[in-house]
């Protein structure tokens, strides 16, 4: 099937088998590998992407759903080729250890800051509760999101 949609701020035309998920399309069809496979059943949040600005699990959404819509992945986060404020805050705070959950975590955080520019620590915890991290204990991730919000 043919799919026309907006990917990381650019028009995208892709071909995909009907059974592919957004995760399949990104990784196998478009070679965009920042979005990771973690569990394949929508629990770990590792494959979080933003569909029309809303965080979704790429492993649960069929690629056909992308038609005419806007998709943002970690590859599209940069601002004019530079890390955006969330990415910078994550790097400075030491919020990425193994880095595997980082893309999904950044996208959930971006959706939070778009909806709530001045979140409390509890808001951050709630917004990221669906993104598992096994390395950091979350402390520095939460610090990074709060720092990015403050830097606005």
């Amino acid at each position, binding site marked *: 099937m043919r799919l026309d949609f907006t990917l990381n701020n650019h028009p995208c035309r892709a071909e995909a088998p009907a059974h592919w998920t957004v995760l399949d399309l990104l990784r196998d069809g478009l070679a965009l590998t*920042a979005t990771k496979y973690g569990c394949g059943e929508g629990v*770990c949040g590792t494959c979080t992407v933003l569909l029309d600005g809303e965080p979704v699990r790429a492993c649960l959404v069929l690629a056909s759903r992308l038609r005419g819509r806007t998709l943002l992945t970690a590859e599209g986060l940069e601002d004019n080729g530079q890390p955006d404020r969330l990415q910078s805050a994550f*790097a400075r705070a030491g919020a990425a250890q193994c880095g595997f959950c980082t893309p999904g975590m*950044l996208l959930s955080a971006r959706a939070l800051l778009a909806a709530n520019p001045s979140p409390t620590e509890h808001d951050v*915890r709630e917004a990221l509760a669906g993104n598992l991290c096994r390395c950091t204990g979350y402390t520095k991730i939460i610090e990074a999101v709060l720092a990015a919000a403050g830097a606005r």
Partner: protein
Amino acid sequence: MAYRVIGRSPPRADAWEKVRGRPIYAGDLAMAGMLHGKIVRSPYPSARIVKIDTSEARALPGVVAVLTHAEVPQNALRMELPGRMAEATAGAVLATQPVLAEDRVRFQGEPVAAIAAETPEIAAEAAERVRVEYEPLPGVYDPAEALKPGAPHVHEGGNLLRAWHIRKGDATEALARADVIVEKTYRTPFVDHVYLETETGIGWIDAEGTLVLRVSTQVLEHFRDVAEVLRLPHGKVRLEGAYLGGGFGGKEDVTVECLLGLLVWKTRRPVQLVFSREESFIGHGKRHPYLLRYKSGATRTGELVAMEVELVSDSGAYAALSPWVLLYSLVTATGPYRVPHVKVDAFTVYTNNPVASAYRTFGSIQTCIGYEGQMDALAAALSMDPLELREKNFLRKGDRIATGQVLESEPMLGETMRRAWQALGPPREGDGPVRVARGLAASFTPYGRMCWTRDSASAWVGMELDGSAVVRCAAPDVGGGQTSSLCSITAEVLGLPVEHVAAVGRDSHFTPRAGTTTATRQLFMSGNAVLKAAHEVRRHLVDQAAEMLEAAREDIELTEGRALVRGAPDRAIDFSALVKAATAAGRPVQALDKYDAPSAPTIDPITGQGKPFNDYTFGTQAVEVEVDEETGQTRVTKLAACYDVGQAINRQSAEGQIEGGAVQGLGHALLEEVVLEDGVSKNPHLLDYKIPTTLDAPEIITILLESGQGLGPFGAKGIGEPAMTPTPAAVMNAVTRAARAPLTRFPLTAERVLAALKSQSASKNPSPPSGERAG
């Protein structure tokens, strides 16, 4: 001593790439003509294989290979680390695991066939079409049952895999004299690593006919295991270490390597093999469940006089690293305390449960539950403050641990305990049905391998013509910042900004062998190797600068990429010119060096006496919990951790290890258990196996002490594993206080806590343990 780079928190070398989602993990690489692997696994924990029929699978279009045991050149996985491992396992029943099962399967998830196909979908369909006829056999699913006469044997030779012992003084006689004795039993379950990246690899054959595997692994030396299985010369298998999406010991054993190597070698095409989350749950080594029986005796004034400990661990169906995990438990069994009389008997036992092997702390987390549970129970029995009791008995410099080893530096245990406890702040009252309580656990975890393995690591450091430096060292980076720390060490020694040091490659063939990223050894071992190599490069740079600046060697200072004469800053030369001149003069600007850990003979097989490890990391964690007395629901609201890390190399990385280890430990404490029914996993999915989320993680206060007494570079100690050791014990002690009834079985689920609360309210004598006073 003031350092320029060491002890600060520059963003790690990999940080900027990771926040852009750019690192190429093992599963991110695709190659033209690449096939997809799929493993057929046993649904039975114990069965005879009557017949394997692959014809229907082979007939499926797009299937390139369906391999069974008959196609494996040498069908045995061996765990052979360099060093005197054999001596340490004398008498053990070390059953090797087949790469693909032959006539029987011994655990659910055991690989039976390996498939390579043009697409993942075809590979999955082919797996369904492999017909395996099984005849279920009686199995054994509990170590105590497995040791009884007449129990089904998992392997020829019996179910006792290995025993270790300590005999120091006369514990039985000393206990008879003790004023107070506390006897308790603790139980821990199988626990999964749940790294977010499942076991993954890609392989191909290069132009020289070498089998190349790019794998998410903590151990590049597994190239040898693949070579042995394929009967290839060791030099014909190359392992390239990708950045890992988490390891925690679970990628220390062979995971995909041999299966992947087999598929590539037989098909002569690139193959990618990614375990699904369910396969990850059932297919790789877990943390060992332990049964811990403790009997501790003390005098009326609170001096420990003796401990008797029995440890039984469930090794599951194969040996993997169980004998060595058990050794760590043996050595740490009595905790960071002076105990004059010790008797420890430790056993690891085969069952038809999942294979258990390495997991962060390597057998130290279970014993901490035992020895720290005992300290709180003793304090209650003595009506003594548990902090005071610990303080009285903590190991000090010059004391002997249970194996008789003398501690050569000050463990600073009292300070770690007091600071962690104070960091929790003023005590807080509960509200309504919510009880608030605090607890702590001190701990003791080795860093670096057993002394008798003669551990070593090599590294190469060299200058480039632009004045920057390069580090080559085959130390896998599991995400703890291993690579970045090597850059920091080099930058400190050479007087370079840290951004001007690049670390390249983690490759079994192209970078000097550094050994495994396990046992909290990389900073200690590779850090020292890099330190030595960097110092040699520094010597050459200083010689060259002294010559060019016409100054004495002692007056040359290297800083910010320049050499200058101390006190005469206008007499300076930048590294680029310096390196070019050195090269023109034929002076070396690189060095390959090797660090050898101090070695010692094996410990005594009967008494356990000797020097098992070179050094230990000591620390304390304290927690505050809220327990809802109506539901048993438990929440950790605050956690404070204080460790002597010797010297932080990257402060943020050291804190990150502690924060991450503690939250992983909280998962063990409250949530995590592989639920088994006769060897069959009931929760091999993240929906049913819960790990902590942002809402479960508490506020964490991390305090780093820096004694400078570690054996690593700049006096550093290892922190990766010690970060996790005391967490479950601290939570258990806090919940026990809140419930006013002992909690000894992990995880401390709401059901178990509620049962404890009910047993307490049913009892006629609800006086709280005196330990409450410490809160």
